[in-house]
C-alpha cells in the first residue's frame, strides 16, 4: 500500500462505514463511534505529518486523471481542517456519550450517532475533494446531517432546523448554478485545471458571483447570517460545537479555495473591498448582538457571526499586496476559532446541564460539577479575544502585520474594535459564574468529569496553537492554495 494514500482513504471511508454500522446496530453506537473517532484523529495527525514532511499531494480516484476523473487534493489547508474536524469530532463524541441520560435533550439518541458520523464523513469528503461537483455532493451530506442533528433537540430547534434547511439548500443550489456555468465554459470541474485555464470574461464573473453568494449564505456572512443564531443556539451542545467550529469553516474554506485558486484573476480591489466590508459589518454587528444576548448559548452563537468576519478581511489585505501574511493569519484565526468555539459550546453545555437553565443571570452560585467547564470557558475566551500566546493572538498578529504592511488602517481598526467587543461579551459571560445564584439545578455528582475535560482539551489546544506558530507557518505554506 502506498503510505500517503492510506490517510485520506481512512479519513474518507471510516466515518461512512461507522455511520452504516451504528445505523444497522444502534446498541454498538458509543463504542464504535469513540473507536472510530480515535482512529480518525490519529489518521488526521498522520496526514498533517506527511504534508509537513513531503508537501502537498494529489490522489486520482479510480486512476482516472482530471478532467475525466475526480481527484483528492491534500495540502496544508485541507490537512489543517481535517485535523480540526477530527479534534472537534472526538471531543464532541466524548461529550455526548458522557451526558447524564435522563437529562439528555435529544429525543431519540439512536439516530444521533449515524447523523454525527455522516456529518463527519461529509466534512472529510469536502476537505479532500479537488472537484467542484464532488464538493457539491459533500456539501449536501453536510447540510442534511446538520439539519437532522439540529432538529434532534426538539421543540423550537425543529423550526430552526427548518429555516436552516431552506437557507442551506438555497445556498447549495446557487453554488451549483455557478459550477454548471464553469463546466459549460471550460469543460472542467477540477480546481487545479480551472486555476490554470480560467479567463476573465462575463460567464466566469457570473459563475464566481453565484458560487460566492451561495457560499456566503452557507458561511452565514453578514447580512446572510439570519439563520445561524437560532440553529446554533438551540441544537444539542456537541452539535452546536461542530456546526460553529467546522461546518461554517467549510463554507469559508471553499471561498478561500476559489478566490485564491480559479477566481484569483477576478479578485480586483472592488470585489476584495466589498467582501472585506461584509466581514467588517459581520464583526461589528455580530459583536454588538452577542453583547446584548441574555442566554449563554445565543451569546456564543452570535459570536460565531462576528468571528468569521475576520476571515473575510483576507481578501482586501491580499488584494492590497500582503497576500501571504493575510492568508496565513486568516486561516490561523479560523483554526483557533474552531477549537475555542467548540470548547465554549461544550463548556456551555456542561454549565447549562449543571444549572438546568441557560439564562446568564441564573448561572451563578454553587459551581460544583461545572468547575472544569468554567476553566475551559475562560481559556477558550482568552484565545478568542487574542491574548498571547494563544492561537487567536497568532492569527490576529499576522493579520495586523498584513494590515500595517499595506497601510490598511481601516481593517486594523476593525480588528481592534472587534477584539474589544469579543472581550466585553465574553467577560459578561464569565462574570455570571461568580454571581450569587439560585439553589437549583441537578446533583453535581451525576455530571461526569468527561464533560468538562472534553471542553478543556479543546480550549488547551486553542491556546497551544499559538506556540505551534513555526509548524503552522510551514504547514499552511504547503500547497497550491497558499499564495507565494
Amino acid at each position: 500500500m502506498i503510505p500517503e494514500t492510506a490517510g485520506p482513504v481512512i479519513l474518507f471511508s471510516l466515518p461512512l462505514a461507522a455511520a452504516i454500522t451504528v445505523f444497522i446496530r444502534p446498541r454498538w453506537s458509543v463504542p464504535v463511534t469513540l473507536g472510530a473517532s480515535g482512529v480518525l484523529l490519529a489518521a488526521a495527525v498522520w496526514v498533517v505529518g506527511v504534508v509537513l514532511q513531503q508537501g502537498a499531494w494529489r490522489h486520482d480516484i479510480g486512476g482516472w486523471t482530471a478532467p475525466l476523473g475526480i481527484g483528492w487534493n491534500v495540502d496544508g489547508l485541507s490537512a489543517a481542517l481535517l485535523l480540526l474536524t477530527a479534534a472537534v469530532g472526538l471531543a464532541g463524541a466524548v461529550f455526548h456519550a458522557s451526558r447524564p441520560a435522563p437529562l439528555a435533550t435529544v429525543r431519540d439518541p439512536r439516530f444521533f450517532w449515524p447523523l454525527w458520523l455522516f456529518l463527519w464523513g461529509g466534512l472529510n469528503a469536502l476537505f479532500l475533494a479537488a472537484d467542484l461537483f464532488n464538493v457539491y455532493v459533500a456539501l449536501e451530506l453536510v447540510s442534511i446531517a446538520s439539519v437532522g442533528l439540529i432538529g434532534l433537540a426538539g421543540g423550537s430547534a425543529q423550526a430552526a432546523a427548518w429555516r436552516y434547511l431552506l437557507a442551506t439548500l438555497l445556498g447549495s443550489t446557487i453554488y451549483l448554478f455557478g459550477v454548471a456555468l464553469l463546466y459549460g465554459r471550460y469543460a472542467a470541474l477540477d480546481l487545479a485545471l480551472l486555476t490554470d485555464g480560467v479567463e476573465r470574461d462575463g460567464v466566469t464573473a457570473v459563475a464566481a458571483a453565484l458560487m460566492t453568494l451561495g457560499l456566503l449564505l452557507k458561511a452565514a456572512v453578514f447580512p446572510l447570517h439570519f439563520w445561524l443564531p437560532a440553529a446554533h443556539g438551540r441544537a444539542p451542545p456537541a452539535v452546536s460545537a461542530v456546526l460553529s467550529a467546522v461546518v461554517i469553516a467549510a463554507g469559508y474554506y471553499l471561498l478561500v479555495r476559489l478566490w485564491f485558486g480559479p477566481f484569483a484573476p477576478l479578485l480586483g480591489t472592488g470585489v476584495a473591498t466589498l467582501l472585506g466590508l461584509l466581514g467588517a459589518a459581520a464583526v461589528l454587528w455580530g459583536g454588538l448582538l452577542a453583547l446584548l444576548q441574555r442566554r449563554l448559548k445565543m451569546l456564543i452563537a452570535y459570536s460565531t457571526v462576528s468571528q468569521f468576519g475576520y476571515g473575510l478581511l483576507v481578501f482586501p489585505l491580499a488584494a492590497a499586496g500582503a497576500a501571504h501574511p493575510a492568508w496565513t493569519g486568516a486561516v490561523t484565526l479560523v483554526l483557533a476559532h474552531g477549537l475555542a468555539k467548540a470548547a465554549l459550546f461544550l463548556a456551555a453545555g456542561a454549565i447549562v446541564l449543571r444549572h438546568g437553565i441557560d439564562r446568564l443571570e441564573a448561572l451563578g452560585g454553587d459551581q460544583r460539577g461545572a468547575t472544569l467547564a468554567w476553566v475551559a470557558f475562560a481559556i477558550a475566551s482568552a484565545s478568542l479575544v487574542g491574548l498571547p500566546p494563544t492561537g487567536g493572538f497568532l492569527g490576529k498578529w499576522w493579520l495586523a502585520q498584513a494590515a500595517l504592511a499595506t497601510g490598511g488602517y481601516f481593517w486594523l481598526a476593525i480588528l481592534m474594535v472587534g477584539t474589544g467587543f469579543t472581550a466585553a461579551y465574553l467577560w459578561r459571560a464569565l462574570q455570571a459564574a461568580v454571581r450569587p445564584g439560585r439553589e437549583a439545578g441537578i446533583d453535581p455528582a451525576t455530571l461526569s468529569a468527561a464533560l468538562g475535560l472534553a471542553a478543556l482539551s479543546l480550549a488547551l489546544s486553542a491556546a497551544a496553537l499559538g506556540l505551534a506558530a513555526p509548524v503552522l507557518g510551514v504547514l499552511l505554506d504547503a500547497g497550491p492554495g497558499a499564495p507565494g
Partner: protein
Amino acid sequence: MGVAGVIFDVLLALALTWLAWQATRAADLFHAVVSFIVFGLLMALAWVRLEAPDIALAEAAIGAGATGALLLSALDRLASRERRRRLLYEPGAAWGFWIPAGGALLGALTLAAWKLPAPGLGNEVRAALGVSGVEHPVTAVLLNFRALDTLLEIGVLLLAAITIWSLGRAPSPLIPAMPSPALPALGRLLFPVFVLVAAYLLWRGSHAPGGAFPAGAVLGAGAILMLLAGARPWIRSSERGPWRWILSLGLVMLLAAGIAGTLAGQAFFEYPPGTAGPLILLLEVAAGLSIALLLFALYLRGEPCEHGYRGKGR
C-alpha cells in the same frame, strides 16, 4: 432541427414556465401540487428533447411520481379546507424580494448561458469508454470515472432517510382516503410490470440508457403505488430484520469497491484490470435495490414501527 421541433420546444418552455408559476403562486395548494406533478412530466419530456433519456426516466419517476405522491399525501393530512389555502402567501415578501431576486438570477443565468461554448467532455469519455467495462457512456461516468460522486449521492439518500426517521414515527394511517374502488386491484396488477421494467432497465444500463438510478426510481415508485392501492408496508425499522441492511447495501458495496482498490495497491476505486464490467453490474444491482427501498422509506414520512405496521409497537 425542423420548424416543428422549434415550435414544440417553444411551447414546452412556455408551458414549463407557466406551470412553475402556478406551482409556486396558486392560492389553492391542491392546484399548486397538481401543477407541480404536470411540471415534472413535461420536464421529463424536455429531457427527452435534450437527448438525455436517463434523466427523463428519473425525472418522471421521482420528480412527478414519488414527489407528487408525497405532496398529495401531505396535503391529505392538512385537515380542514381552510388550511389548504396558502397560509404562507405573503405578497409583500414575494414581490418585494423573492420575485425580483429570482428574476435577476434567471436573467444573469440566461445571459451567461446564451453564448456558452459548452465543449463538454464527450470526446474524453468516448476515448476511455473501451476500458471502462461498459458500453453506455452515462453508466461509465456514474460507476467508473466519477464513481466517488455516486457513492456520496447514495450516502445522501441514506442520510435523508435516517434524518426523516429521526423526526419521529411514521404517521398512521398512511393511506389517503380512497376515491376509487378500482385502484387497489389496478395497483396489484401493475406491480409485476414495475418489477419487470426495473429489472430490464438495470440490465440495459451497461449498454444503453438505464442503470441503477432509473431502475431504483421505477421500482420505488411502484412500491409507493402499491402502498397507495392499500397494501400494508412491509418494511420494519427493527434491528433484527434485513431492512437496515438492504437500505445500506448500495453504500456498503460502493465503499467496499473503493477500499478494495486501495487494498490491492491501486488507487481508491480503481477496479482491477478486466473486472470492471462484472463489478459495475454488481454495484448497479446493489445500488438499484437500495435506491428503490430508500425512496419507499422516504415516502413513509417517519420511522416505521419495530414490529410491523399497525402492530402494537412502541
